[in-house]
């Protein structure tokens, strides 16, 4: 009897020891940060935003075709939306989607963002914003067409091929949404792209270069006339 009791005690102590060991191991893991506690409150006031300040007003006025007053107006609007001074892609997509509530503007906003983001670092600063606006609104015809070419040329290799054009056109059609008249068919974008290439690709080599693009656009009076439409946007 005595021995059994003694063994019982020993067994119990074994259990206790193992339980304590396990808890100590868990605590060690927790301390070492290996165990995730889903409690992210330790990083209280981390600096999440990168504040960017634009160049001086005079410099921007020299670099772009805007005058001081217009730059002030533009900056005020920009700063209101993005106090940190930069726009990242998600914010841009959100903003752009608000103008096209019918459909899905996120794909096209992605291409547009890449066209604005001259340094390809994932964020648009005020300088990028104002430079692009200056080209689009106050630039020469050639500059505008070059900007458009850069928008279409997704991989920036100097050529627009059919796949790139298909992506862009499909993104544009996505913005229309589902309820259109006439109803969109799945080969609508392809036909659109084929027509475009028929017109733009002068030497029929399957890609459109910058010169072909500019030449073709300059031949089309409609395009030339429409380019002037947006000059009084600001």
């Amino acid at each position: 009897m005595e021995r059994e009791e003694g063994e019982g005690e020993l067994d119990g102590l074994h259990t206790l020891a193992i339980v304590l060991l396990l808890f100590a191991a868990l605590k060690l893991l927790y301390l070492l940060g290996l165990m995730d506690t889903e409690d992210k409150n330790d990083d209280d006031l981390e600096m999440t935003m990168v504040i960017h300040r634009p160049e001086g007003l005079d410099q921007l006025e020299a670099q772009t075709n805007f005058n001081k007053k217009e730059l002030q107006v533009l900056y005020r609007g920009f700063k209101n939306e993005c106090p940190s001074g930069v726009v990242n892609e998600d914010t841009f997509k959100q903003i752009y989607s608000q103008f096209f509530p019918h459909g899905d503007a996120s794909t096209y906003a992605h291409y547009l963002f890449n066209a604005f983001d001259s340094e390809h670092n994932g964020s648009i600063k005020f300088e990028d914003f104002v430079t692009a606006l200056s080209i689009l609104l106050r630039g020469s015809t050639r500059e505008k067409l070059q900007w458009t070419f850069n928008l279409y040329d997704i991989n920036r290799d100097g050529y627009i091929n059919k796949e790139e054009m298909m992506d862009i056109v499909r993104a544009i059609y996505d913005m229309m949404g589902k309820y259109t008249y006439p109803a969109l068919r799945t080969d609508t974008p392809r036909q659109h792209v084929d027509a475009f290439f028929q017109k733009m690709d002068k030497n029929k080599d399957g890609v459109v270069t910058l010169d072909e693009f500019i030449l073709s656009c300059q031949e089309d009076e409609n395009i030339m006339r429409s380019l002037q439409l947006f000059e009084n946007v600001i």
Partner: protein
Amino acid sequence: MAAGVATWLPFARAAAVGWLPLAKKTMPKPPIDKKSRSDEILFVNVSGLRFQTWKNTLDRYPDTLLGSSEKEFFYNEDTQEYFFDRDPEMFRHVLNFYRTGKLHYPRHECIQAFDEELAFYGIVPEIIGDCCMEEYRDRKKENQERLAEDNEAGEGGDAPLPPNSTSRERLWRAFENPHTSTMALVFYYVTGFFIAVSVIANVVETVPCRPIKGTVKDLPCGEKYSLAFFCMDTACVLIFTFEYLMRLFAAPSRCKFMRSVMSVIDVVAIMPYYIGLIMPENEDVSGAFVTLRVFRVFRIFKFSRHSQGLRILGYTLKSCASELGFLLFSLTMAIIIFATVMFYAEKGTKGTNFTSIPAAFWYTIVTMTTLGYGDMVPNTIAGKIFGSICSLSGVLVIALPVPVIVSNFSRIYHQNQRADKMRAQQKVRMARIRLAKKGTTNAFLQYKDDGGLQDHDSDSTALCVKNRSAFEHQHHHLLHCLEKTTNHEFTDELTYSEVCMTESVGYRTSRSTSLSSHQGNSSSCCPRRAKRRAIRLANSTVSVSRGSMQELDTLQVHKTSLAPQSRSSLNARTEDLKLNCDDRDFTAAIISIPTPPANTPDESLPPSPAIPGILRNSRSGSFPHDPVKISSL
């Protein structure tokens, strides 16, 4: 360098005269001060409240908006002041920061509004002075928690999955939100059931059963029906293992999943079984490892996935960890003190229970927590006195950290209540948001119907169109440009479904059928549809549209019912139909004409006398396709 130091710099430099007699070499030339020494007062107008401050004050912090050249963007030449369209009350605090170098947080302001102002002025919140830092931190944490919950309630809720999610993502979602699909719900209940079964089996297996025939001693049921219990245990462990592996497979980030608390609990719950399997039937070792079976009780913690209350409790305990630690520590101190005292007080008594200080621990704990089993009782007077002091102080020490824990629990519990309420209201909110969104989409359609896309010079522009804001005009112009680019029009759901309906019904013309046979992949809605419109080339020639007369009928009727005024005006002037853009373009609103008889000798389209006005299309340019005939009835 702190702000105030700059003011003392001239003094320090002047005092450098005292070094001159001692200097070994000649002094260097001082830097040329290009800036003018005179200071000027700047005017800052914040939403009408005019502030005035020295320029030097603002220059103290050159990496903020007011201290850098960025404020020039807000300079108003006419009034010679800087105008900011922000909250004037908050600006007071911002300006005080420049003046005193310490940023204070106003207690009555919303934390997020304050943060936004700081972000606008380019001030990092870390500079908040010590007097206000704690308040700021607390409120920010509270706000973040609340936002995190709302986000969770929003996203993790019953939102529909993106259409092209992989099976892995769907599986993960089914695990996290059992309410999304019936399969997930079934699985959820099955695992819950098996957890319960496993725990109950663990408990029942130790209950003494009637002994086997022939023996006297009572056996625990576990040993009597050992095979049955073993099978049940195996089944449960198999299910748990399967569930764990599935979760591991579906987890978006396997590392993160393996480190989470729930996964550790899962592993600890099933490990003993496997260890028991591989452990050899060794006498010495198995004794200790049989005690591993005690870990099977961990399976009860798996219920925390199923029960929110358990999770709240766990979270509360975790957040009160420091208070609990303090309680434990102070209790340990008190136990040791009192146990020692009791031991020495009772040492002299014969046959006493207080054989050693560790033995006295038991008495102290039982007394301090006011349990009082009575198995160990002091006999001496000194022992009784100390015993009573022990029990009185025990009550106090335990009562101290309890309110803290309770308040934590109540805060977390209320947060959860709020989250549940949020989730319940989510559907209503989403419906309302969708309604608001539809409002903006319908605004454009309404705009079109009111004839807003016409030239603004014409007198027939409706008054309601003129009264729209400039923003609306420009936005509608943008949408209209998109329509022109794609040569498709925006419609609402009603029209779209009508169009689909009429097109799928009533196909009488062979031309349309022959056309439809040319279709490649048509949209799912309208499988047999005539080619309404060839794709318009970029800004150039115009397409042709044809259609069956029946479509024309319905559509015409529909359109005319919506906008009588514009139609009539357009009807009147069919010659020089000046539409919104230049005359080469067509709006889709104007339905084109039936196929000219020259092209379709094999069909006879019935005339449509009742149609009030098929509009005229002006011809333009060269068409790549069949010519469009103008007809008006």
